[in-house]
């Protein structure tokens, strides 16, 4: 047992204790993976030195597939079997998608399914989860190559702030399918703010305007001494740069007087539109050129034309910015800066519109000095490092993210109405309870329907879970007192419990959305030869157990060294016994025994942890009263 650990800032005291974790930006158009290297977060490149991976998967014969640039390059010629923008379909049924976008413009043949739609390819039906898993597995492989290991401990994956539970669960399912352990999902603008704030040492209130390929998010964050507080968040999960591509393609086709009939033609028109849009960020005019029906068509496009086409979409983003400010009861002048994130913020029209929204008198700045493609993955890598305990182990434990839930959670009440229990933009972790009663004499059961969303009607919200409280003793209507408690932990995971106060009968569920993939489905997909490398599960489990034990012992010893005075001597001795036991077992090969010892140590130190927490709180207050004087 080392008595003293000497380490450089940013480096773990011992490589064994430093877990390799990554941050992944799973984007509509592009995806990236980032990790901490030598104390600095950076995006990991592929063998050709490219950090961006196009979020495109092409399905070939015989179960083969192309992922990334190869797939994107083949998109125009093999559109129906080359899936891009799968993120737009995550956790969505066909009807959900049809409500927000015109599917006839897309070259795919969709299959309607109860949980989530699929896309028919020559390799069979593929869910958006499977497509996303291919992209995630490619990034995992890239990280493993970069660190020369097959042991990536986990990942923080970013999602749009406005993703609901179904979309988040679908993202987690994709990660599981790709063999990635999800440490947490955080929202894209939050990740961007983490990266921006830590790199620039910024303090104060910032807005993050994130216009990606398929989603728009706006978040307000307050940065103060390493604490990142999400104040409010909003956006539109079906609005992005892709929509501008579609608008431009439609306009150009109209101008050339041709109709794109085949999947190939539609894709060619779109690909050309994207190229034109990108060229117009630098030039005043650029041609739109696409081969439609075997004939090359060319239309000159002025930047003003593109701006006019993009205007309605930009206006929708500005309305969302005004709304999030109203939600937070803040004015434009409270905002010190707007961090522009997402490839679509390269468009001059977007930058100008945001500047104009805040007005000429506004003292803040529109900040375009970050790499809009990379900043989200970098922020995710920072948070992954903190959640793996690496930052704390290396003395960098100064960063803390106080996140919120983006969508309200509630219960169905009489008449199909929603009673909101936890409002959106509430800081997590949070627990709230509300009392309900029976409405019929002698009613012995109560059905509970948990929903998510901002609308007043259950039919317009997302259904998350249904369960029943049974065994209520017969009483007259209104006499029972049923307390329903909602708890959302730091991971955003919701648990709901119900308890009849008089009789004490109770029931509880941890909510996993009913439309996510069932565990059996995931298992089946894994068995069906999903492309992720085989790992020796037993060896991995032992390695993990040892790392846990080492870290737990180290943390407990450090705690004892600082705060043994908080415990009576006999309790110190009891903890010492547990430490010795854990250290001894960790040297052996029995993973289960090590895990049991770590759990025993955890239980045995609970009172100590509580006492230390208490002391921490008292010191926070004591420090504050001194400041106040």
């Amino acid at each position, binding site marked *: 047992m080392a008595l003293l650990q000497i380490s450089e800032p940013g480096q773990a005291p011992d490589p064994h204790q430093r877990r390799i974790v990554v941050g992944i930006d799973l984007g509509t158009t592009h995806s990236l993976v980032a990790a901490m290297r030598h104390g600095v977060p950076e995006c990991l490149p592929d063998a050709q030195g490219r950090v961006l991976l196009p979020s495109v998967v092409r399905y070939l014969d015989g179960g083969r597939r192309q992922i990334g640039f190869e797939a994107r390059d083949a998109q125009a010629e093999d559109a129906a079997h080359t899936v891009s923008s799968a993120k737009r379909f995550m956790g969505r049924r066909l009807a959900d998608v049809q409500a927000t976008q015109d599917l006839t413009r897309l070259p795919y043949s969709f299959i309607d399914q109860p949980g989530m739609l699929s896309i028919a390819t020559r390799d069979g039906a593929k869910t958006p989860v499977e497509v996303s898993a291919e992209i995630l597995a490619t990034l995992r492989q890239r990280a493993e190559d970069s660190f020369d290991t097959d042991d990536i401990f986990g990942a923080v994956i970013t999602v749009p702030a406005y993703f609901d539970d179904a979309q988040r669960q679908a993202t987690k399912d994709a990660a599981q399918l790709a063999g990635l352990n999800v440490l947490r999902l955080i929202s894209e603008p939050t990740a961007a703010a983490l990266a921006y704030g830590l790199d620039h040492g910024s303090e104060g209130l910032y807005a993050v305007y994130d216009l990606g390929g398929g989603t728009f998010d706006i978040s307000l964050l307050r940065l103060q001494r390493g604490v990142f507080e999400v104040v409010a968040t909003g956006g539109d999960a079906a609005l992005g740069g892709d929509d501008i591509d579609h608008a431009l393609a439609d306009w150009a086709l109209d101008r050339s007087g041709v109709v794109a009939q085949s999947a190939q033609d539609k894709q060619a028109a779109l690909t050309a539109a994207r190229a034109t849009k990108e060229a117009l960020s630098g030039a005043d005019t650029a041609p739109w050129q696409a081969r439609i029906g075997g004939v090359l068509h060319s239309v000159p496009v002025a930047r003003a034309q593109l701006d006019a086409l993009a205007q309605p979409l930009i206006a929708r983003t500005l309305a969302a910015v005004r709304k999030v400010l109203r939600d937070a009861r803040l004015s434009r002048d409270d905002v010190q800066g707007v961090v522009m994130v997402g490839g679509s913020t390269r468009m001059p029209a977007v930058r100008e519109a945001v500047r104009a929204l805040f007005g000429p008198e506004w003292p803040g700045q529109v900040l375009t000095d970050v790499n809009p493609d990379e900043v989200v993955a970098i922020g995710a890598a920072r948070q992954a490092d903190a*959640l793996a305990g690496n930052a704390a182990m290396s003395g960098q*434990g100064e960063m803390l993210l106080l996140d919120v839930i983006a969508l309200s959670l509630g219960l169905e009440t009489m008449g199909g109405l929603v009673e909101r229990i936890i409002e959106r933009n509430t800081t997590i972790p949070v627990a709230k309870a509300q009392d309900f009663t029976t409405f019929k004499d002698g009613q012995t059961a109560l059905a509970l329907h948990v929903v998510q969303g901002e609308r007043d009607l259950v039919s317009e919200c997302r259904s998350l879970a249904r369960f029943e409280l049974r065994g209520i003793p017969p009483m007259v209507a209104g006499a029972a007192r049923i307390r329903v408690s909602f708890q959302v932990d*730091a991971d955003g995971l919701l648990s709901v419990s119900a308890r009849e106060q008089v009789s004490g009968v109770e029931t509880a569920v941890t909510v996993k959305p009913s439309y996510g993939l069932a565990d059996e489905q995931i298992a089946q997909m894994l068995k069906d030869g999903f492309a992720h490398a085989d790992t020796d599960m037993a060896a991995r489990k032992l390695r993990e157990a040892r790392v846990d034990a080492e870290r*737990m012992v180290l943390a407990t010893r450090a705690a004892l060294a600082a705060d043994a005075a908080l415990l*009576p001597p006999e309790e110190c001795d009891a903890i010492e016994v547990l430490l010795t036991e854990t250290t001894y077992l960790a040297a052996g090969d029995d993973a289960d025994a090590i895990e049991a010892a770590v759990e025993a*140590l955890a239980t045995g130190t609970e009172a100590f942890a509580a006492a230390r*927490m208490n002391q921490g*709180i008292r*010191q926070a207050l004591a420090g*504050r009263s001194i400041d106040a004087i």
Partner: protein
Amino acid sequence: MHLPRPHTDGMAPWTPRLKLTDDDFTLFGLPPKQAQDRAQIDALWRDLQARVHPDRFAADGAAAQRVAMQWAVRVNEAYRRLKDPLLRGAYLCELRGTPIQAEDNTAMPGVFLMQQMQWREALDEAVDLPAVQALEADVATHEQALHEDLQLALDVRDDAATAAATVRALMFVSRFRQDIAKRIEALDA
């Protein structure tokens, strides 16, 4: 480790002084008064979360995580009540033995109800965004006056009954402001 050295304050050091069941003001070390400095409450909340949030104990194992979760939830609960003057006032009434009981106690002074009806009519008749915003400003002025009454009743007169009645009036106003917000949202979309 993140927690600083223990400070000795004469108590048996292993006797925890704060409990999850302590009231919000005690937890934040604030006097149980309606008049509070919002910036100070925000700063205290951040400091407390920096000490108790589960993510700060990512490396410390399951026991610390469990304890941290309980405290982080409790600190957020207290913060939610303390930072909002309406919830804070209602909580103080309750601490002083006069719960609000909004469901059972809907009787309001006639003048106040008249005012409410006028506002509702004004909202129905408002045709554009500036009209709704003007109404909102008017309501905000009245709300501010009610908050001053509430503070006076709680902090100066120690009159919990009057305070509770004012809280109920403020709850009406708060609901109306939600309706205004919905209208603004619809007009601005």
